[in-house]
């Protein structure tokens, strides 16, 4: 098997909050608390969870946009191995060139004072990737065309564009340096459904053309289902289930995944649904619940859940979930096999 382009081992990102002079020790907000996964070249990993689950922080940590508390993030790009977190100078430039980000709000991420051409050209100029202005212009035009932007648009300012067009400009800016890995943080959440579909289709085409690897962050499971190869479900700084997309949606194993799925409104008002209604909201990451962090909201919590952290249980091929119930089910099915256990 090929080498993963991104490998994350036991990543933790903790932020001190409050505290300071005369205020005593700060409290620790555990935004990401022990997350591991891999992304292979050309693969799209979806990261889903409620707000406050730490999805965005994971994305930022992968591109050294936030300090890493412990654990490791390794990026394998352009025959170099980058230990994200401590990169400086030239090696940081390699990361910036090969790992790019698309943000949620195309109204906030594009400078209103720059023309579209300058916005798209800025990464090339900042990283000295081109020698002449002609070369820059050529690359800007190439990528603009790929992102289905009109060349006459390049001279205009962002305010003249609709949300969908702005997001295409943001995508062009992210792709102009020919990256191999992209973090898309809620890249379609601010768009209308009708436009969302066209931006997703564009991203998919570009992904296949350029063999891009993606970390695709979204709170919307149906968007994730359509766009991603593998899905990781996050809750309060931890991944609770990870599986290939088809497996996850056919057999969601973790009660949290099941609850997220059943909260999606179906289009037909009479569609039969087994509703798992989650009560309450996501607890504070400053004082996460003991044991399994989901036990305070879990509809099927057991006596063991508050006291002991669940281990990862295997459900199927590359499909794992961290839940005591999954664990005990796996044990039960294992011993009912009967043969060869004690051998």
């Amino acid at each position: 098997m090929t080498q993963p382009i991104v490998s994350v081992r036991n990543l933790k990102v903790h932020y001190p909050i409050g505290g300071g002079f005369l205020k005593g020790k700060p409290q620790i907000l555990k935004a990401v608390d022990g997350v591991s996964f891999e992304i292979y070249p050309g693969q799209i990993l979806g990261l889903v969870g409620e707000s406050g689950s730490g999805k965005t922080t994971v994305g930022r940590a992968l591109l050294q946009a936030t300090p890493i508390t412990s654990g490791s993030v390794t990026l394998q790009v352009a025959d170099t191995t980058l230990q994200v977190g401590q990169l400086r100078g030239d090696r940081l430039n390699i990361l910036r060139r090969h790992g790019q980000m698309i943000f949620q709000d195309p109204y906030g991420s594009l400078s209103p004072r720059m023309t579209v051409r300058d916005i798209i050209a800025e990464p090339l100029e900042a990283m000295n990737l081109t020698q002449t202005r002609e070369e820059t212009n050529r690359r800007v035009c190439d990528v603009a065309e790929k992102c289905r932007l009109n060349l006459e648009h390049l001279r205009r300012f962002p305010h003249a564009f609709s949300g969908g067009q702005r997001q295409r400009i943001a995508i062009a800016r992210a792709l102009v340096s020919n990256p191999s890995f992209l973090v898309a943080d809620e890249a379609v959440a601010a768009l209308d459904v009708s436009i969302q579909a066209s931006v997703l289709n564009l991203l998919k085409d570009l992904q296949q053309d350029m063999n891009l690897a993606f970390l695709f962050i979204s709170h919307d499971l149906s968007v994730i289902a359509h766009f991603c190869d593998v899905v990781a479900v996050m809750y309060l700084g931890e991944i609770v289930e990870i599986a290939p997309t088809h497996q996850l949606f056919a057999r969601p194993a973790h009660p949290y995944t099941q609850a997220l799925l059943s909260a999606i409104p179906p289009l037909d008002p009479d569609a039969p649904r087994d509703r798992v209604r989650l009560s309450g909201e996501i607890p504070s990451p400053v004082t996460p619940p003991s044991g399994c962090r989901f036990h305070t909201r879990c509809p099927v919590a057991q006596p063991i859940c508050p006291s002991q952290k669940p281990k990862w249980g295997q459900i199927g091929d590359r499909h794992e979930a961290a839940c005591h119930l999954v664990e005990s089910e796996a044990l039960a099915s294992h011993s009912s096999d009967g043969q060869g256990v004690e051998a």
Partner: protein
Amino acid sequence: MILMAESSLLMVSNLSVRFRTDEGLVTAVDDLSFALQPGQTLGIVGESGSGKSVSTKALMRLLPDYAAIAPESHIYYQTKKGDYLDIAQMDANHKALNQLRGGEIAMIFQEPSAAFSPLYTIGNQMIEGIQLHRQVGRRQARKLAIEMLDRVGMTNPELRIDQHAFELSGGMRQRAMIASALVMRPAVLIADEPTTALDVTIQAQILDLLQELQQEFGMAIIFISHDLAVISQIADDVLVMYLGKEMETGPVRSIIRHPQHPYTQGLINAIPRLEAIDQPLVPIPGDIPSPLERPTGCVFHTRCPHGAAHPPCRTSVPDPVAATTGDAHPNHLAACHLLVTEQLEKMV
């Protein structure tokens, strides 16, 4: 002019709203008509820029100064006392409007942090509203506010009432806003994308809550959303809008199962469905045109898959006609030339 049906609580007829801008006059709502029955939910759906919010703000006369309601517009409303008002024709400073806003028709918004002032506590703001509409003392008003916060599922309402909006989570803030909107028991609640900024899990809780409260208080709801799936969960009737115009209207099941208008069909096809994750997403081509370059004829023809091939679409504005295909409901109307042509062909 349509006569007000005896049962309607609110009846909008030929409502047009125009904005004066530096670049010229912009039509935000164009000749819109709909009715709202007591205790029912009307869902208004459309892309951003389709005039959903502007048309409901007109119902409360909350439009900015540069907006003008066209003289031929009527918004008939039957008050709790049984009087009939034409909100569109009233003077913007009319005293009765103050009673109407908040007392008869209340509104909740997408962004509760923007709806609450950060300088005052939730309680301050709720009590102010109660005392504007009712002759009660501060203590009594506070009691009413706490009761309502409790009713919408706030934990520790006695504590929360003295907190500021920024101290609450998104879901709790939305509950606080629902409480302050419903404390006066309005006859109509306008909910403008109230769940768009929330997680799906919290969205489900808020939708359940709104339905419960509607049962209990018997209010009518106008629910605005760009998400047809959310609308399908809560609405009895649906109004599909595009560029300020009504495209299709009818009972929710009929619209979802037998969409007649190419725009509604496009909206439905663009939704990523969990049942069909291998099927490609079908976007509506192009972007919403700039309001300054309003298309002639049917406003949707520039993005319509059939618009180019059908000449009348570019020149004349289609009238709503009853849907005849399949098991579409008799009250199901769509404004599309293709339907008229189809029906004529059938008659021949």
